[in-house]
């Protein structure tokens, strides 16, 4: 059984500080939905409102169409997996998993049976009698998942549960989480500041900043068609060229930035329509590092500029090249490690280009702090 979760105009205030502001989103039954945002953006607060630890100051949380206001966390059909997992250290693994059944008065035998089933599900068979502190980090993770699933919740809420794990394990758990979600078929609401996690696991992503939901969409949409400068810079890397609109011509926008002018696409707004610009508007043009190439390599390239190489960074599969353009804009572009970068020593000038189709023009707004 899974359920639809809807947030209607949810605002949560602590004193005069808004942790969440006018959040509207509808998460479908059986969907894997992620809230993505930097720490302090209010995503955990939102999750606590869904699980019932907080009441929204305004607006409503609906689960399966039912208003949840006044219903405590122990009465909602949701289960929360905490950031620190919050396993009960004084209980055995099986007792942890069967805790929700224990408080509902199930007898010992049925509790044990259910615990064993769930241990099977998370590939921990036979570990039920261990103490929590005897498990490794990944195993604890699985116990937390099993515990949350024991009462067959309709919605599973996950609050950055992978953040304590090391990189390899994190990647493995991502796949596993996704697999478990598909097996049990319930709604997962996942919270993370790691765009990699959000993009690999989720059906849809909601990007949050400063308590507001900036964009909701599929992973592809969010990456390729960001609605706001924040989304453009928070999800993946982006080069930002600040400038003024010179003219608008059949969907293409010509932007005057420093000495040169580039042509790009007008971005999509939240209403799913292209932004309408007119000459003189302050805008930002975003170009992904992988869209930039050395001049001459691509025939389609219509925007070109020259820049001075600052440093080259080796990152396994990619090389990141940092440059500064003639207009003092910091540029970053990436090439596969195997490609030849022999001509690009620091302090050398190179010519670069990018295609009009890969440049997105958005109105000015806050950028993500890296």
């Amino acid at each position, binding site marked *: 059984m899974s359920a639809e979760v809807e947030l209607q105009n949810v605002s949560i205030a602590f004193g005069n500080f808004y942790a969440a502001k006018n959040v509207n989103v509808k998460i479908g039954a059986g969907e894997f939905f992620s809230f993505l945002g930097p720490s302090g953006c209010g995503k955990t607060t939102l999750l606590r409102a869904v*699980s*019932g*630890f907080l009441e929204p100051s305004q607006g409503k949380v609906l689960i399966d169409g039912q208003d949840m206001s006044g219903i*405590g*966390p*122990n*009465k909602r059909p*949701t*289960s*929360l997996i*905490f*950031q*620190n997992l*919050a*396993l*009960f250290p*004084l209980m055995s693994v099986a007792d942890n998993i069967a*805790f*929700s059944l*224990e*408080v*509902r008065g199930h007898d010992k035998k049925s509790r044990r049976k259910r615990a064993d089933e769930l241990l099977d599900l998370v590939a921990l068979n036979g570990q039920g009698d261990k103490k929590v*502190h*005897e498990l490794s980090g990944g195993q604890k993770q699985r116990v937390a998942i099993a*515990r*949350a699933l*024991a*009462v067959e919740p309709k919605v599973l809420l996950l609050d950055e549960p992978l953040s304590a794990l090391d990189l390899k394990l994190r990647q493995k758990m991502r796949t596993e989480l996704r697999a478990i979600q598909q097996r049990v078929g319930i709604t997962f609401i996942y919270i993370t500041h790691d765009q990699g996690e959000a993009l690999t696991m989720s059906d849809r992503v909601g990007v949050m900043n400063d308590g507001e939901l900036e964009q909701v969409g599929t992973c592809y949409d969010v990456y390729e068609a960001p609605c706001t400068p924040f989304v453009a810079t928070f999800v993946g890397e982006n080069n930002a060229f600040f400038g003024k609109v010179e003219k608008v011509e059949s969907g293409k926008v010509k932007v005057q930035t420093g000495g040169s002018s580039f042509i790009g696409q007008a971005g999509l707004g939240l209403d799913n329509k292209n932004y309408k610009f007119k000459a003189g508007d302050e805008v930002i043009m975003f170009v992904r590092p992988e869209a930039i190439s050395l001049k001459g390599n691509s025939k389609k390239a219509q925007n070109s500029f020259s820049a001075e190489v600052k440093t080259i960074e080796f990152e396994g599969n990619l090389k990141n090249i940092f440059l500064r353009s003639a207009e003092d804009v910091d540029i970053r572009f990436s090439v596969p490690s195997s490609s030849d970068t022999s001509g690009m020593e620091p302090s050398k000038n190179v010519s670069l280009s990018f295609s009009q189709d890969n440049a997105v023009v958005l109105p000015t707004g806050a950028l993500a702090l890296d």
Partner: protein
Amino acid sequence: MKPNLAIQAFLGLYILIFFLYLFGPLVIMSVTAFNSAEFPAITPWECFSFRWFNEGKIAYDGQRLAGLVTDRPLHEGIISSLIIAAGVVTLSVPIGMAAAIVLTQVNSRLRTLFYSMSIMPVLFPGVIIGISTVVLWDRIATLGGDGFISELGRNGIFLTILGQTCFISTYCFLIFVARLQRFDTTQEEAALDLGASQSQVFLKILVPYLMPAIGSSAVIAFLASFENYNTTVFSILSEQTLTTVIASKVRLGISPAISALALVIICLTLIGAFFYEISRRSNQRKKDRENKVKMFSEVSENRLVEERPKFFRIPKSIFVFLLLLILAVLTWQQLIKNNMYGAECVEKAEASKKSNFADQLKLLQQNAESVETTDESEGNASRSNEYNDIFGDQNLFKDFGGFDSDKNEESENGATRSNEYNDIFGDPNLFKNFGGFDNKE
């Protein structure tokens, strides 16, 4: 930080002196419990005996000095102390726990006020807590008429429980606060989220977590209540507890029976500490074993080799024990050699004291004939006061001033004072006898 040798030696000496200061008085007091003399002292040593643990003695002058076993007031005091301690534990542990939990829930401004109020009783002199409890309840009892309330308000045990709970709750509170500081509150949220009711969260998550604190605060509360004097002496009214019995004993007369009692308490403490240490070590070992199992799964084996030769290790404490044993045997031999042990010795000492006493009585009578009657009555009075009011009579104190000064007084002031002195410290010959103790060796 490794200090150099001189500092290290100095530090070692300092620590030695410090612990000598801590334990010296207790050791000496313990030894005096075995001296059969009426005054707790090592010198002069009369006889080695267990009389102060058993029946005590009835002195030749009719003074009755109870030993531990025969001391009825003491037994009654212990019983009421136990009742009070049980009451205090049952009240102060829940109070401390409730206050500590609520402290974690209130907002920061209220928290400061609440915290300050909670710790106030520790800073208040115990005397004041006792007095305030008594005056309040006396008033309540007066207003309450003849019924149950007036009974309650004038019941020393009830008042003592309340008075002690007032500040012992703070001890418990502080223990719980310390434990709760390390509590991960998301555990409570997790339990709630899993469907537990608030009471279930409390009983199944919080209470098990607080169990060690509950245990230790119960022990602390028990001990603090058992030991308390300052509050109890006011709030107990006409009843007696262990501490007030001890205090009145100390006040009435210094008797080795108190040393014997102290020794019993010291032994109980040592046994308690011993078992505490044992259980702690076995817990530690269990933890180490668990860690080792975990380590095996994570660490390559070559790091885990060196633990084998444990088989041959002799615990250092055995040497200390052996040393103590040897010392005890040597002392014992000396006691036997000098015929300072057993009923025979005690009888001899008593006999000599009795004859001494008779002599002195004679002397006193002679004096009485020559000296004015007022003096005589004074002398008699001070004798009867001797054990009853050591604190009351200022002059008497000078008598403890010492052997030599007394001798001087004897020549000046007549015999009465030195007689008293002799009564207390026994035969001067015995002292010489003890002095020979070392020489013979």
